[in-house]
């Protein structure tokens, strides 16, 4: 079974179309939306579109939402999962071909990349400052070297799903997954994806928060 995990926080406007797209064009068998403490109708809209909905009573962060999705995937016996954003920044049409690529390559985990042969319109500051800085931080923290250090589009097989436990509750999970991929000797591949920027996403202070979270994570038991 191929499961799409979609963490969502106050995404009532986008979540319905994202879920429908995942079913119609993404080739997934099931979609689970983790409503991360939204105050709007995200859960209802996702349910109407046909997704299973898990509700966090509090807003805990994307990392926690993804881990809840992983636990659900293990519970329903998913063979593959795809991490997919709720704001419609990824193209669901790319999932099937990426999934085929992962299976052909016999890797455990596929990372989408904005820097291979597809060219996304990445904001200048992000492209020139934040992403190179992210690569540098990842290098020092022992992550696998990827062209895209903060890739949000991922497909994991069952082995990767079992091995990767996401402990970082907020956005630092992206680096944590790369570090754990290396730690558990998981085979990985990169695949070119488009990202459509509806909003800027992580800015400089967001990047600093990620670094702070990663450093704190070294001390938290």
């Amino acid at each position: 079974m191929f499961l799409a995990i979609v963490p969502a926080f106050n995404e009532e406007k986008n979540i319905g179309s994202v879920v429908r797209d995942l079913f119609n064009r993404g080739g997934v068998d099931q979609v689970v939306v983790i409503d991360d403490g939204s105050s709007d109708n995200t859960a209802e809209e996702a349910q109407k579109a046909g997704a299973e909905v898990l509700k966090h009573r509090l807003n805990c962060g994307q990392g926690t939402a993804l881990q809840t999705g992983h636990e659900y995937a293990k519970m329903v016996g998913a063979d593959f999962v795809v991490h997919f954003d709720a704001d419609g920044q990824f193209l669901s049409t790319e999932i099937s071909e990426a999934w085929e690529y992962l299976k052909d390559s016999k890797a455990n985990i596929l990372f989408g990349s904005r820097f291979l042969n597809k060219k996304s319109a990445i904001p200048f500051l992000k492209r020139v400052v934040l992403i190179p800085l992210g690569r540098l931080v990842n290098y020092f923290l022992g992550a696998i070297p990827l062209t895209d250090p903060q890739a949000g589009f991922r497909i994991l097989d069952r082995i990767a799903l079992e091995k990767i436990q996401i402990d970082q509750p907020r956005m630092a999970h992206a680096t944590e997954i790369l570090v754990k991929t290396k730690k558990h000797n998981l085979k990985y591949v990169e695949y070119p994806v488009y990202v459509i920027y509806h909003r800027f996403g992580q800015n400089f202070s967001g990047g600093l928060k990620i670094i702070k979270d990663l450093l704190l994570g070294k001390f938290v038991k």
Partner: protein
Amino acid sequence: MIKVFQILFSCFVVFALLSVYKRKTEGLLGPKGLFFWVLFWLLAGVAFWWPNSTTILANSLGIGRGADLVIYVSLVIIFYLLFKLHIKLESVGRDIAKVVGKKAIEDKK
């Protein structure tokens, strides 16, 4: 006047040591914490009754005045405690996140 302060502070030290002992018997303080706080209050008592002791120690460390040494050590301790507190808060936050995630799964079962 100084004597009065010394006696008052000594009472405070005794009270602090008693509360440390109470926290230990209640299981709220580990051996490392017990050692740290007993040592801390005893040293504070010694410094209050024998102020020159801080100057002697400061001079041996290349610091001019005993009061400066007390300030430097206090700053280090405060920063360390803030750091520990920050980690504790983060740890509690992560535990809450785990509980929230588990509850979401249980609600689905």
